């Protein structure tokens, strides 16, 4: 989902129309306040916001959303492509900074990389979710597995029986949905991103 915030209706409609032709789902907001009030937090997406708007700027909107835990990729567009605003935007953690008028390809690339980032975020969140269900001991066992240790070595390291280690591994495979050492390693790394 793409969330488009611009106070100028013609710019908003034009971008909406363009994105529509790529069959990208778009939700428009006419002001940051409108966005804060009606944004569906349960449906992560890409935020495309104008920088200069009355009452609240695009950067302020971004900061407020971040404070609420909405850390979705944000693309800032502006008619004033000054370096100062650009630097501030990137400092605030904005994904991309585009100047008006916006080239179709530039926009699409920005959306694409934002989408990748969004997917990564989703994956990471998923991985974190899975890891959150593990017990303290299971976590210790998982960390040793990803270091390439076998059950015996793990048992020796944790000063427990091999049987107990195997029970933990079976539990891990069940909770993480995979028994593969490679998959489990990837999950841990993703969560650590």
């Amino acid at each position, binding site marked *: 989902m793409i969330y488009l915030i611009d106070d100028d209706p013609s710019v908003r409609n034009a971008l909406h129309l*363009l994105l529509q032709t790529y069959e990208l789902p778009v939700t428009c907001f006419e002001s940051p306040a409108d966005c804060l009030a009606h944004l569906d937090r349960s449906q992560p997406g890409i935020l495309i916001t104008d920088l200069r708007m009355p009452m609240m700027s695009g950067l302020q909107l971004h900061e407020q959303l971040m404070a609420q835990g909405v850390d979705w990729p944000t693309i800032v567009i502006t*008619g*004033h492509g000054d370096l100062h605003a650009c630097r501030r935007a990137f400092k605030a953690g904005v994904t991309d900074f585009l100047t008006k008028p916006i080239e179709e390809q530039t926009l699409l690339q920005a959306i694409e990389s934002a989408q990748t980032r969004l997917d990564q975020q989703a994956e990471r969140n998923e991985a974190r979710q899975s890891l959150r269900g593990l017990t303290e001991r299971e976590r210790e066992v998982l960390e040793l597995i990803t270091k390439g240790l076998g059950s015996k070595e793990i048992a020796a390291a944790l000063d427990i029986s091999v049987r107990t280690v195997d029970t933990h591994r079976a539990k891990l495979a069940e909770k993480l949905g995979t028994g593969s050492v490679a998959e489990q390693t990837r999950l841990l790394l993703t969560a650590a991103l």
Partner: protein
Amino acid sequence: MSNSSPDYRHRWLLALAWGLLCALMLALQWWQAHARQEQEQLQLTQTVQRQMLEKVAQHKAHLTALTAVAPLDAAKESSALQHIAQSVQTIYPRVQEIQLVTAATPATGSCRDPAVAQTAAPLAPRASASLPDALHPGHYLFLKKIAAPEGWLCVRIDSSHLLDDKVLPDDSGLRIRLHDHTLLEPAAQLQQSHKFGEFTLAGYDQPLQVQLLSRPRSLVSWSMALISALISAMLVGAAHLIWQSRQQARRHQQRAQLLANEAQLAHASRVNGMGEMASGIAHELAQPVTALLSQSQAALRAHELGKTELLATALQANVREARRAGAILERMRSYVSNAPSQPQRLDLAQVVDQALLLLEGPARQAKVALCWQAPLQPCSAWADPVALEQVLHNLVRNALDALGQAQDAQAAISITLEQSGGEALLMVQDNGPGMTAATAERIFEPFFTTKSDGMGLGLPLCATLMERMGGRLEYVPGPHGARFVMHLPLDGTDLPA
């Protein structure tokens, strides 16, 4: 001088200086005249004293001479006394009577006064004395005791002739007393006059006490006062002219300095202003151009995909945006051009409707209510629609900015239109924080702004645009918020005949 209109601020100061100078000159004149008068009066007193002393000395001499011949006359051997007396009286008219009083020739006239005998009796032989004459006012008797024949010589003297004519000026007079008896008083109009000299004659047995009096003289004449006034006026005027020309020179210098500063400032603001203007144009045009680009690309995509419905939507939007860009360029042109505006007959309510169309969006976003009710009676005036719309737009935008800072739920801007005194009054009133008097004084100054990103040209430009249309823009401070009134000349055909 080219631009020296009378300096009214200094008028009272000049008058004061003139008055002081005048008074000073008059005081000086008075002081001089007074000193001169004192000198004259002192001299006059001395002259009078000298003359009178001469006269009384003569009396004494007459008596001495008469005393010498008196015994002969008494013995009827001679009539020398008679002769001398006659000649004395002829030569000296003030000597009115000369008598020899003895046992043989008893006193007559004034000499019969018992006081005369009383005065003469105690006198030693050859001694003399004087006393006022009881019979003739203003006269006194001068007596001399003689031994043989025993008796006395008596001379009656008219005190009013003790002084030669013309010695005293007309405004002066004499008072003569003898033994505290007044012999002579000055003329009635001089009796209350100022006494300027006084002496008592001594040495000739006629101790006349003399006072000199004079009417107070005006020490400064009207003509002198007039001349003083004229001279001091000329002096003050000349001083003022010199001072003015110096001021003028200084002002010229200051103005030259100011012009130099202004030129620098103008240059700086032109450079700055061009940057601002370019940035403004870029910002204004960025929106429609962005829309145009995205819509055109969308149209291409729609064309490729064969979605004709989308294509039409995109192209219609393109037309709209291109027009918007054109309107922005038109506005920019009228901003920068100094060409006189083209006033035309306008229905003002329609212009307001048109201008507010563009402002409704921003107002809604700023959560500010726009209150506009067209008047029932149509109001048409001569104005340039583009300029008028621009002024209205600027004023409402300013009000929105002011209210945006306030964050007030009741925030509202009301626009009203009325006719008054041959003028159309279009008013923009907000209920924001208003402005301080100091700010209000400067709002029409170019480059004065209270906004962090403002250029300070909005209101000066509005005022200029209104003036170009033959109207004017006025700020009216009120208890709540700011109120701007646009004055426009009403269309003549709407005026009552």
